[in-house]
């Protein structure tokens, strides 16, 4: 009996693994590791992210020690990406359907990585503070 169960569970896990591998290899708009991609203006830094069917860029390298403003840009965004969750700073917010929504993020020490995802978890982004 259990042979078939185990087999199916292995396959299910295998499919998940495949999905992981698939999604991991697509670094669309990902920044080079180490290069800042925020714009510093005064005592704050800014980054523009397009939120629609995922987030682009997915990796943000920000400067440590100064506050960051994430500008989420939407245009007819109806999918999950319109709901942003950043668990470690307790942020849960809804983006407007069209336009720009700003998410203020307090200054973080170097080496911190904040991970955000959409409201149901299928799209993610990461902010590295360096």
């Amino acid at each position, binding site marked *: 009996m259990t042979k078939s169960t185990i087999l199916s569970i292995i396959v299910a896990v295998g499919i998940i693994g495949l*999905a992981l591998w698939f999604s991991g290899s697509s670094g669309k708009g990902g920044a080079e590791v180490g290069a800042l991609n925020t714009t510093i203006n005064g005592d704050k830094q800014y980054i523009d992210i397009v939120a629609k*069917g995922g987030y682009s860029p997915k990796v943000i390298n920000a400067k440590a020690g100064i506050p960051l403003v994430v500008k989420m840009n939407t245009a007819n965004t109806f*999918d999950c990406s319109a*709901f942003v969750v950043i668990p*470690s700073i307790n942020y849960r917010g809804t983006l407007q*359907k069209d336009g720009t929504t700003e998410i203020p993020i307090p200054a973080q020490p170097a080496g911190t990585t904040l*991970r955000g995802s959409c409201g149901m978890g299928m799209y993610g982004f*990461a902010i590295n503070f360096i």
Partner: protein
Amino acid sequence: MNTYRFHVHGMHCKSCSVLIENDLKESVGVRNLHVNYEKKELDVSGDFGGIAPEKIAELFTKKIEQHGYSVSLEKERRAKAKLSDFNLAIPFALAFMAAFILLQKTGIVSFGASGTMTLGTVFIIGLIASVSTCMAVVGGLLLSMSATYAKEGQGLRPQAMFHIGRLISFFILGGVIGALGTAFQLSGTAHLLIGVVIAFIMIILGLNLLDVPFVEKLQLTLPAGLSKKVFRHAKGSQVFAPFLLGAATFFLPCGFTQSMQLYSLTTGSYLNGAMTMLVFALGTLPVLSLLSFGSVSINKSKYAGVFFKTVGIVVIAFALYNFLNTLVVAGIIAPVFSF
């Protein structure tokens, strides 16, 4: 006076034996009748006036086939050719999942709609939602439910009830949102809880569809005594349970559904909100019906075993996918998927 032993097909819970006993014990000639759920056997004694046992099995089947059961002299057929089904089910499941992943990679969710929202746009958003990652939640749950009902041999009714429940609740609750101007939003804890419960249900149903004996023992069955009472009054479990499940999909975590709810609240009137949510649900209907009515039609074919095992694997994979995503949102693990 003769005594016969028949094999019963299509029983899925203890209450089935009660239902069958109730339906058959009034038959002509029957003196004593007992259905054994564990062994899937029916023992009957009585005066049948020399009718052949094959004929009795036929007569009994006629009385209970409306509930999806049948009676025969031979043992259950499905016991055979079990493992070999996986030879086809595994590649099918892989192909389905690969197609699903590729569909997400085409960026179908990033379709370009014009600025103004019309009911036509809302319908298209519904269509897109039904093939998006929302499928993993609503579609996965529906698929597991449909295939489970279909496997029990039940007809179109529970499937239809699910869709009717979904459409009605989207209309009514959409109107409520429009009229009140407040959207329904899950708290972080509620989201986590619902996510875990749904994943658990889907895994149980998925394992069930794989038709492996040890899960059947795990099945949550109503005590026979309680079932007797319930079944005497109503054969409603095929109607209300799917109806409620369909209605509850309004609250399931799906980005598109929530976006539409947010849009409905800006419409500012009961009718506009109701229409928006109804048209959105209608947009998701073609794909969702395909999932549920497909399960029913394939049940009679000889590939039923392969089909249910394929669905079982897909449902389990969806359940794991949903479960991991739920943990991501709760901040327990880092995001793992990104299509």
